[in-house]
């Protein structure tokens, strides 16, 4: 599949409403140029024409009024402003008018410190795709993302956990952005006609790893998408025939631990690196570190950063096992 792997900002238009936004921007741009020059050209001209050495004191005139001009520079800008308001409004209209849910794929999005999670509707086999997307600093890329078919309406139903903070789901190439607010439901939608990979950035300040809260949207051919959607694979790009990963690793990825902890080194991302952690602490400690992270805080870190995870005992046990194996 042809994937464009570099950031695509305002110079690439990949959603159906992007051209409306760009049009509004450029209309504004040219009107601004005109209005700006209407101030700057006379200013430069007067500064030159009436420069000190060019004017005798008797030539100075105290012009203080000119009704026609004054009306002109009130009314014309007002009218231009209304033009701008209209285009701002109309481009927003296409961004904010949600298509019918029945004609769209509705994906639940959860933004939390510092990962994005997607939850799809169940496929024919009843499997619900739940994808956690985190940025991997080491490879400089996002692991997994939102997979969508080309030319289809996608509605994002977004929220954040109640004990989290505000984030913002920003897709520069689509010109869309909406905050993800704990306790609220916010929505946005898009339809992309261009196959490709598009960066998602968190645009609302959310703390330590705000700069790394990336995700990506992968727009694919319908057939590729269907093939993946009806399968159980975590992503269309992961080889289904490869050795299955352990339950622990899977939990580790799905809960977004990787966003804060490096499993194979001691480097600090947000929390401490977990390499060799099994040798340092017993299982009980590790279990506690997940369920009640604020209890034992290692030196150099603060309580309140790592959220408590409410996982089943079995899952925690698997995670602990996985961490103990991280040597």
């Amino acid at each position: 599949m042809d994937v464009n792997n570099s950031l695509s900002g305002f110079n690439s238009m990949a959603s159906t409403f992007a051209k409306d936004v760009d049009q509004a921007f450029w209309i504004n741009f040219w009107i601004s140029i005109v209005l700006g020059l209407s101030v700057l050209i006379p200013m430069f001209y007067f500064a030159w024409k009436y420069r000190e050495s060019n004017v005798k004191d008797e030539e100075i005139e105290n012009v203080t009024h000119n009704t026609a001009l004054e009306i002109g520079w009130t009314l014309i800008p007002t009218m231009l402003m209304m033009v701008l308001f209209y285009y701002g409004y109309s481009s927003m209209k296409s961004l904010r008018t949600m298509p019918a849910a029945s004609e769209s794929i509705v994906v639940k999005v959860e933004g939390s410190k510092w990962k994005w999670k997607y939850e799809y509707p169940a496929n024919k086999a009843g499997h619900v795709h739940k994808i956690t997307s985190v940025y991997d600093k080491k490879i400089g890329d996002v692991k997994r993302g939102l997979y969508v078919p080309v030319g289809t309406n996608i509605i994002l139903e977004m929220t954040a956990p109640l004990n989290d903070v505000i984030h913002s789901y920003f897709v520069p190439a689509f010109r869309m952005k909406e905050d993800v607010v704990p306790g609220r439901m916010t929505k946005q939608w898009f339809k992309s006609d261009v196959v490709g990979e598009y960066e998602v950035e968190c645009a609302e300040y959310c703390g330590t790893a705000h700069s790394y809260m990336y995700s990506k949207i992968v727009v694919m051919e319908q057939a590729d998408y269907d093939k993946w959607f009806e399968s159980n694979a975590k992503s269309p790009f992961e080889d289904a025939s490869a050795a299955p990963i352990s339950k622990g690793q899977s939990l580790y990825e799905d809960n977004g631990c990787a966003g804060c902890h490096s499993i194979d080194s001691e480097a600090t991302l947000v929390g401490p690196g977990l390499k060799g952690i099994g040798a340092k602490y017993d299982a009980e400690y590790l279990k506690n570190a997940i369920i009640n992270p604020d209890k034992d805080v290692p030196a150099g870190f603060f309580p309140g950063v790592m959220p408590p995870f409410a996982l089943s005992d079995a899952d925690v046990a698997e995670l602990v096992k996985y961490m103990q194996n991280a040597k």
Partner: protein
Amino acid sequence: MDTNTIDYAKERSGYYKILVGLLLLTVVTFVQPHMFMTESTFAAQMIIAVIKGWLILMFYMHLKGEKLIIWMTGFSLFIVFTFFAIVIGVDVQKFQFKDESHITASVTATPEAGHTAAPVAH
């Protein structure tokens, strides 16, 4: 300063009259829920409060005749009013996705604090 210009007895009886008025209005606040405008206690109470406030401003606080200060007071109140008009009158009235948001739920169902999936939709 204005020692000579005031009529002591008249001003004093003025204070008492206003007090009686305010006390009466307080009684009205208590009977109102059982008497009138029962379909909108809130509006009735606020109307009474505005009348009381007006009495206090004009007489207890001697605003009567103070043109400049009345204008300024009006301006300040107008600003507060606009905040209400926009935030309450527009934004909250049109609260988006109310039915799906946690904070607007009418029953508390606090999901386990923690990273459980999307909050419960009610």
